[in-house]
């Protein structure tokens, strides 16, 4: 039975809260958001908008495709599609907040960190995720978490966002 964990309204409030937390922790000085494809990009855009509403400032924003940094490239069947990475500002000495939808094994974050380092040397990298479902395989933690959802390994967390999925926002946990 799929179980709805978050709905549209909850997600809106969570984004709002996370924006405040990000600002509370370090202000807007040197702050930049980078969304990890696919849904991290939409979430990062929402955070950027929320920050603009609060502070009135446009902060730099980038898109990161981590496919080329995956550690399972040789294990998957058909070659995964590579999409564009677009970071058109210098990340050196910035405070970068990486944004992703579901935080699970930590491998995506690891790939994203490697990719980011190739672009420059940020002052600091933080991680913001909509959902933390546990089961880390690497020593990585999130700095900003929308919601902690305890899951078992054979469950699946599905994040649906208007921008990417064309449906009303929701987060659902279902059995595989």
């Amino acid at each position, binding site marked *: 039975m799929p179980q709805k964990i978050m709905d549209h309204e909850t997600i809106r409030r969570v984004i709002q809260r996370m924006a405040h937390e990000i600002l509370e922790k370090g202000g807007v000085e040197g702050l930049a958001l980078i969304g990890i494809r696919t849904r991290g990009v939409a979430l990062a855009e929402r955070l950027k908008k929320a920050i603009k509403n609060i502070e009135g400032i446009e902060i730099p924003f980038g898109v990161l*495709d981590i*496919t*080329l*940094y995956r550690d399972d*490239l*040789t*294990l*998957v*069947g*058909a*070659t*995964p*599609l*590579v*999409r*564009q*990475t*677009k970071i058109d500002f210098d990340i050196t000495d910035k405070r970068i907040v990486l944004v992703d939808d579901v935080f699970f094994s930590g491998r995506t974050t690891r790939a994203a960190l*490697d*990719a980011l380092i*190739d*672009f*420059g040397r940020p002052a600091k990298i933080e991680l913001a995720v909509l959902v933390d479902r546990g089961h880390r395989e690497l020593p990585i933690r999130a700095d900003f978490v929308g919601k902690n959802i305890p899951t078992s390994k054979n469950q699946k967390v599905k994040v649906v966002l208007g921008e990417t999925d064309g449906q009303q926002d929701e987060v659902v946990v279902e059995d595989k």
Partner: protein
Amino acid sequence: MEWKRKHLLGLEELSKQEIQLILETATSFKEVSFRDIKKVPALRGKTVVTLFFEASTRTRVSFELAAKRLSADTLNIAINTSSTSKGETLLDTAKNIEAMNVDAMVVRHGLSGSPFILAQGLNCSVINAGDGCREHPTQALLDMFTLKEKFGHLEGLKIALVGDILHSRVARSNIWGLTKLGAQVTVCGPATLMPRGIEQMGVGVDYDLKRVLKNSDAVIALRLQKERQEAKFLPSLREYSRLFGINQDKLSEGSSNLIVMHPGPTNRGVELSAEVADGKQSVILEQVTNGVAVRMAVLYLVLGTKEEVVI
């Protein structure tokens, strides 16, 4: 669309969707070459060998850079054979290199069809970097990539291929690729270098360069090998240049948006005047830049595939 081919032997066997996938993937890869650190780890630990039986600098270097920017180890082997009948050494040579556990072999050979011999005889991926007069798929892909960048689409574009069509693998690969993606291709060149039945590949034939330029969005000038004149296909290079060389005067027949391409290296004053080659309508250097991105995409796709082998 998933990529499921282990080899890239030509564009003849690729579907429209497969060609589009390569071009889209190349778009993603282009950005890598503009970073400070021009390297991604996608092919870390893979070994890519370029095995060239014909002299080439441009294509080999482009493949080598593409592989290196994907973190693959590269090894370049150039084997000098003036004769195309040295085919017996081809598979043997390739097998010996493969025995050192290489993952992909980028091959150029004077024999048409030689990549098929390798793809059937080897376990590693084979990428055709030019076989005889048959195909040069990555050149056509980079031409198409450049056209797509310039015009935003390929569908409906009018593209002219000018020069020695008979011996041109670049022409053949471009004809396959461009026609599959909906472009209209016209071939133009001396009748003695126009292969019989070319129109059955879905192209128009026109011997009047000015008219062709007038009706084209882009022109791809082909390299004229000097040997062709020695083999009496042409009365003289001067006469060739007079009829089929593109100079500013002839170019002015066409639209000012007409772009000029050339696979290189250019015989200045023969296929293109220096003025045209360096002029504002020329995208020759962009082609070279795009070549790396396209070859990165091809290496990435071909080496990433673990599923069934499609030859």
